[in-house]
């Protein structure tokens, strides 16, 4: 009797000590996302948090800024970027990535300026105040620069660039505030709530550079299982949410 009780106590104590050594990974994720995807990501995050009883800290910034922060802090689980080049540049920091949707660059102009700018070439007009993203900080900046350089009037257009904003969201703010006349932003942003008095002009296909949005699991993750779960969630259920916010989930 004494021996069996003692044996049981002994087993429990061993299990107790062993369980002390087994660390439960945190049910928390840090997600970096390009600011251009803030609305669908917010909804996906809140939906995932609700469904999986987890806490997600989302940081919205320019893709390059996100990448810089990941490199410096060595922290974070997920990186969602509308710029595949940024994910590829992350190289050793990305474990795996999944396609989510397409990011289509468009030209937007103030409605009261729409008569002067009706096509891409009109950006070369010296009176046009063009805003683009900072190529070192956000994806749209790099892409816009590339699109402009592809145009016959690249030189004139570049001379009209009045501002290079840190994020694409800033471009929209400036346009709405009429601080600039035109900007190259993402097509889906046209559906943002505070958008008013602006018109969209499609960039000619030969010049345009449609981007893929990818969700990547970072090598710095502390809970790979949960991070993978979230990444798969974004690339499956998340697609419809992206679609709802004006993103294309098919190329055409």
């Amino acid at each position, binding site marked *: 009797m*004494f021996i069996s009780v*003692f044996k049981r*106590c*002994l087993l429990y*104590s*061993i299990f107790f*000590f*062993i369980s*002390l*050594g087994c*660390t439960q990974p945190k049910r928390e994720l*840090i997600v970096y996302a390009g600011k251009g995807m803030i609305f669908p990501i917010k909804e996906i995050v809140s939906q995932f948090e609700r469904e999986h009883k987890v806490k997600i*800290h989302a*940081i919205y*910034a*320019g893709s390059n*800024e*996100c990448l*810089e*922060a990941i490199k*410096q*802090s060595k*922290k*974070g689980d997920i990186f969602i970027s509308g710029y595949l080049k940024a994910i590829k540049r992350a190289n050793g920091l990305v474990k795996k990535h999944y396609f989510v949707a397409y990011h289509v660059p468009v030209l937007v102009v103030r409605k009261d300026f729409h008569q002067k700018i009706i096509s891409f070439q009109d950006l070369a007009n010296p009176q046009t*105040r063009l805003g683009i993203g*900072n190529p*070192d*900080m956000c994806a749209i900046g790099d892409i816009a620069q590339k699109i402009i350089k592809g145009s016959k009037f690249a030189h004139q257009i570049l001379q009209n660039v*009045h*501002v*290079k*904003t*840190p*994020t694409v969201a*800033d471009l929209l*703010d*400036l346009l709405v505030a009429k*601080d*600039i006349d035109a900007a190259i932003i993402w097509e889906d942003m046209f559906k943002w709530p505070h958008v008013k008095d602006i018109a969209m002009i499609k960039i000619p296909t030969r010049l345009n550079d449609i981007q893929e949005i990818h969700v990547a699991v970072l090598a710095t993750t502390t809970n790979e299982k949960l991070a993978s779960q979230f990444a798969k969630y974004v690339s499956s259920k998340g697609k419809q949410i992206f679609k709802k916010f004006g993103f294309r989930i098919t190329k055409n």
Partner: protein
Amino acid sequence: MKIREKLISAFLVVVLLVLSIEFANFTIQKRLSNQFKKTVENELLGTIAIAGLKASMYHAMFYADNYLNSGNEENKKGIEQEIKEIEKYKVLHEVYHIYHKSSLLGLINKKVTNFVNLLVQITLISPQRLSTKKIQSLEQKLHKSLSELSHIIEPMVEEHFFNAFKMEKEIKREILESHKILWEIGSGILSLILLWGIGISYYISKPLVKLTKAVERIGKGNLDMEVEVSSEDEIGQLARAFNAMVRNLKKITVSRNTFAKEVKERINTEQKLKASLREKEVLLKEIHHRVKNNMQVISSLFNLQTRYLKDENAIQVLKECQNRIRSMALIHESLYRSPNLIDIRFSEYVKQLANNLYASYKVNPERVKLFLDVEDIPLDIETAIPCGLIINELISNALKHAFPENKEGQIRVSMHLNPKGEVELQISDTGVGLPDGFSLENTESLGLKLVKLLSEQIRGKLEITKNQGTGFKIKFKKEHKEP
């Protein structure tokens, strides 16, 4: 479970417990130190981020001031560069403050965004086209924004340092606490191990003590006991074997006592038998002695009787009878003198018998020489008496008839065992020999008739030779009875 298995499992449990304590200690230390490292790192790196943010904002303001006052494009580039730095530090600060969970994070982000927007707006304008008032207004906005941010950031930096210091103290306290808890748990487990060890040693030694006591009791001769051990280990097996041994020992002891009693009885019986045998031997000797004496008395009576007889034939008959009785008396004498009361030393007997006959018939041994070649063949009384009588008759016959008129000659008596195991008795003389036409079947001589009858009695084969005297050869099988 065997003792070796018990000891090995006990050893393994102890090792496991010690390893568990060590593992727990290591894990707790590691976790605390990781937590410490992470917290301090977060706090310090957060501080660096916010300090970097603050520095970038001041730099940006410097460039903005210059740009607004000079309109120099280089300053504009400086503003753009600093905006990039501000954005970088803002994101970094946000990352580190996710762990810190600062309530001011949202406010700082908002203020930084406003500040950056202001900077962007400044880069959009051409200062040359702006009035001094407008420039001053922008400068004031910029300064105000930065001042507000500084007011939030300054205490935050201090808070970061304070938090780092506080956290370090907390972690150190937790490490000490965990040491204390581990020490208490370890002491408790060691005490349990000690108690368990005592229990195990008692558990193992108890049956051994029982066995030792049992062996001591058995050593003192107490076989009516059993050791009570219920365990299935080697000690249990030993105890069961020991009990079986005690039971067998008990049985053997009982058998030994019975056997000893039986041996004693047999020795007594043997002693009685020996005594009885000695008694009988004495009795038998006495009988032989008395028979010999009686025969000698008879012989003496015949001798006395002859003195009153005048008839030579009667005297002769009595003398012959006397010699026959003496030959038988000699046998009895030899018997009671023989060590086993059965065998007769025949060479001695024949010599004595012949001497008596020479004396009886008053024959000079120089005239009729006697040659004896008698082997000492042991013969029992049933054979010895007829043999003695045969020798008596034949020597008597030779002395009486073979050498008339004081004729000289020889008498030979020999007795040997032939290779077939038969006794060959020969009595021969060099006398006148048997008369012509002599036949043993038709003879009138009592002596020779007796010789024939006695030969048949011992199942002997009698042969007579008539070459230079007379010779008798009797072959018979020796029927010697074992004593």
